[in-house]
């Protein structure tokens, strides 16, 4: 069973520098973030060994949120070999996230 990676200032670069990564910026008080939480968990399972599915708690990791100019959550950033290549703002379906990751693999 794949599990998403909880990103912090100390592991962010390490996890996103190689391959494809989806990073979900969320917070506990955000309804739409909670809505996509089970989707993120399923994606972590589906893409185990193929892409890193990650979450950033913007409440605890404000420096990362500021670095990427996050002003709305959920914001989902897509990285390829350390470079941010795409982003989605707001809740979306699992299919939409899956298609985006597959297009980067």
């Amino acid at each position: 069973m794949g599990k998403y990676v909880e990103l912090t200032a100390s592991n962010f670069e390490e996890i996103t520098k190689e391959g494809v990564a989806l990073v979900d910026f969320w917070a506990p008080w955000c309804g739409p973030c909670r809505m996509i939480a089970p989707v993120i968990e399923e994606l972590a399972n589906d893409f185990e060994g193929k892409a890193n599915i990650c979450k950033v708690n913007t409440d605890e990791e404000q420096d990362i949120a500021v670095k990427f100019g996050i002003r709305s959550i959920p914001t989902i950033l897509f990285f390829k070999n350390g470079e941010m290549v795409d982003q989605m703002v707001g809740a979306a379906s699992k299919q939409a996230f899956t298609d985006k990751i597959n297009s980067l693999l």
Partner: protein
Amino acid sequence: MLDCAIIGGGPAGLTAGLYTTRGGLDDVIMFEKGMPGGQITSSSEIENYPGATAHNLSGMDFMIPWLEQCQRFGLKHEMSEVTRVSRNEDGTFTIHKSDGSTNTAKSVIVATGSTPKRAGFIGEDKYFGRGVSTCATCDGFFYKGKEVAIIGGGDTAMEEALYLAKICTKVYIIHRRDTFRSAPNTIERVKMTPNIEILLNASPQEVLGDAMGVTGIRVVFKDGLTRQIDAPGLFVFVGRDVNNQVLIQDDGSFLCEMNDAGEVIVDISMNTSVPGLYATGDLRIAAPKQVVSAAGDGSVAALQAIAYVDKISHR
């Protein structure tokens, strides 16, 4: 074949799920692309649902027990996005999903709700998610100790202004009329809040921004004067668009009768023009767009669906 397919997992869909399963339908799936709860989970406070008297009860906390209650009676939740509902020759329905798979169902309750409208000013789409927001509980945090502006003058605008006024140094309310249609109690609280400034007869003209996002907004008044407000956050609460996409057929027509606003025409029992198809909550004509009325719709539609499924099964 499902006895009933419920499309959408807000208050209407969840209540329909509770009533159909508890009322004896065996095979019921509620299709909701993520965690159920609906639009109210973005609301900072709910104080008009009868019996829900907890102080500062957030929409999210309020909705948490709803799914659990439904699942106790056997409701299944499938985390899929439904793209279309079509009707088969034998009167049953096919539920088409974004991954290409389908389900068939004897009855369908559509509870897809609505989505916050954009106000239509210059730069709104460009800066959406980079300073322009429709969710104060989600994004208010990013403007702690800063100034924000709210576009709109309805209930949501007023309630979220009060919420933001607790976090932000100043909240501007930009309202195109000179009167409010919100609940008098809420308007009074807004007027009594010292760090809220109300701009009446005012419309947003253009968002101002840079590479990092929004920096302010230019407002135009009815008399033609303009004013620039320097605020990095803009919250838009100007009503909602109904989510009727699942009813659009391959030929572009709707599955059932709709009004000009794209709302489903239903009778007092949530029957649409198609037997076995029900529409509830924000999606239907004359919807009050309240949690309690959406929940009421869900129960009414569920009782109708139970009777319908019973009738066709014993034909």
